[in-house]
């Protein structure tokens, strides 16, 4: 089984978010970067599938040189080799184009990634990659089992779960509880040193969006406690102060 796992290099979930360059650039100063948590689930499931079925895992990231420690971690967790597309991930379309190019050449049985990144949270890349490759794309996938040439998949839908069967190859945007995150062990970290990490230049520079500027959400206000008997005051505040009704 030949699996491609696409990972993002994103700020740690506890990072303080701020901007520079007149709110046009994310300030990375002091920010720790991690494998996107949803991508990390996809990678963990890929490692399990490889343990069960054999095969090879290739991990792919679209990013500049500073993402390599994140890629090495994926290799330490269990990927066999890595590809870095040497470009800043400008938008979902740009990233999907790069992934599709690698996927076309790689003849993968499965293309896994997170349901969405946790920086821009677009959740679009898996769908675009499926379209570009002419194969099914499913998301958010919570369960994934392989039987021969078929996958059994559970997908989260509004108010329930959808169980599907799909023929390989296909694209999946993953989320918990598809697998438990794996912590790399010391042998894996040592082994990652010698695994190949191939850097290739981007194929197509086309983007569909341009960035205007960033804005932080308004700071949370203080909580006002209103006596349960005093409904009229609550209504008054919602209408005249919060202006939501």
């Amino acid at each position: 089984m030949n699996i491609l796992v696409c990972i993002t290099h994103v700020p740690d979930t506890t990072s303080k978010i701020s901007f520079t360059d007149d709110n046009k650039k994310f300030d990375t100063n002091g920010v720790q970067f991690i494998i996107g948590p949803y991508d990390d689930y996809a990678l963990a499931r890929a490692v399990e599938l490889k343990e069960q079925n054999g095969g090879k895992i290739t991990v792919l990231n679209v990013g500049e040189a500073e993402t390599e420690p994140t890629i090495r971690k994926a290799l330490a967790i269990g990927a066999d080799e890595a590809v870095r597309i040497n470009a800043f991930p400008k938008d979902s379309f740009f990233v999907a184009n790069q992934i599709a190019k690698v996927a076309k050449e790689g003849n993968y049985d499965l293309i896994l990634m997170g349901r969405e990144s946790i920086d821009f949270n677009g959740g679009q890349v898996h769908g675009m990659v499926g379209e570009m490759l002419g194969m099914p794309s499913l998301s958010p996938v919570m369960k994934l089992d392989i039987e021969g040439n078929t996958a059994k998949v559970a997908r989260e839908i509004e108010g329930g779960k959808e169980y599907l069967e799909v023929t390989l190859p296909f694209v999946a945007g993953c989320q918990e509880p598809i697998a438990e995150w794996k912590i790399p062990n010391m042998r894996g970290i040592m082994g990652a040193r010698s695994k190949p990490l191939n850097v290739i230049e981007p194929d197509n520079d086309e983007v569909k969006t341009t960035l205007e500027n960033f804005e932080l959400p308004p700071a949370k206000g203080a909580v006002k406690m209103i006596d349960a008997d005093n409904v009229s005051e609550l209504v008054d505040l919602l209408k005249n102060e919060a202006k939501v009704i």
Partner: protein
Amino acid sequence: MSTDTLTQNGSAKGKSAADLFESPDFYQLDDLLTEEHKLIRSSIRDFVKKEISPFIEDWAERAHFPYEIVKKFGDIGAFGPTVSETYGGGGLDYISYGLIMQEIERGDSGMRSTASVQGSLVMYPIYKFGSEEQKKKYLPKLASGEWLGCFGLTEPDHGSNPSGMVTNFKDAGDHYVLNGAKMWISNAPKAEIAVVWAKDESGRIHGLIVERGMEGFSTPETHGKWSLRASTTGELVFDNVKVPKENLLPGKSGLGAPMMCLDSARYGIAWGAIGAAMDCYDSARRYAIERIQFGKPIGSFQLIQKKLAEMLTEITKAQLLNWKLGMMLDAGKASTSQISLAKRNSVATALDIAREARQIHGGMGITGEYPMMRHMMNLESVVTYEGTHDIHLLILGAEITGIPAFK
């Protein structure tokens, strides 16, 4: 004030809450580490948050040694990280070993003791002084956590003076006969093998590998400890134990052999104790910002700020000292007295920080909701074992003056 009131008033990390630990890096010492070092640190930190932090207060309260952690330590690679990969070790450098010990002891000194005894005191002597057959037989099983090992040097009547040991072995033709007893032995009750230091008939100290099941060998558990309660401690008793001759470590004899093991372990303690100090500091810093008295966070008061500032200062100094010592060890240039200085400094620093951090937490600080009391009690062992605080002072004194005060 009742405990309930304290709980309601105190904003708590608490036993059930997530372990949010972050290590301070005030002097950007991460710049001195490689990306691989940082990945090792974050992986062990994640391991501790998953496998140790959620359970440690309960284990310590019940004086329960979680034997299943041995296999987990083996899987993550915490046993013998500096031992060659040929024998199942990690093949890592001493900075990596230090970071692993720091992160495990950040969780608990008892857990770190389990790991550092296995790595520095059992695997290290077999790796350095063992025959090829011994290395192949024991090291992979110790590295994977299939077997737990222990190290027998200290005796009931010989602690700071190990050369006075009375445990001895006699040549009985095709085997040795071992007699004596060892005390305060971490891992002993659950250990499959023991690396035991004993005198031959001429009074020369040698290392012997004693295996569980050998007739006359027993490992009674030491009960009633108020420290390292989640680690298991016991005695080693040898009553005419027949030890095969191939179990003698051939590579080195004399007191220098076990002392080399202790150098490696003490280095791990120097990093580990600062891990415990960081945990106390991190908890105190969060609490000082969240806890409101007189209408404002207690962190706004000068006396609290003084405590926190002094903690950060001492942690930062020790971090740099440990890093430099690791670089010297990797270059084969660290001396015993340099290791003594770091072990002594780190443990004293950690004890002070644990006490100050406990005070910042007020009444909450005495409960198992926060880690300080556990660390503080653990550190009373750490300040005593592997060379007491005073003995390390005298090692430095001998180094300075050329006149040993302990012979």
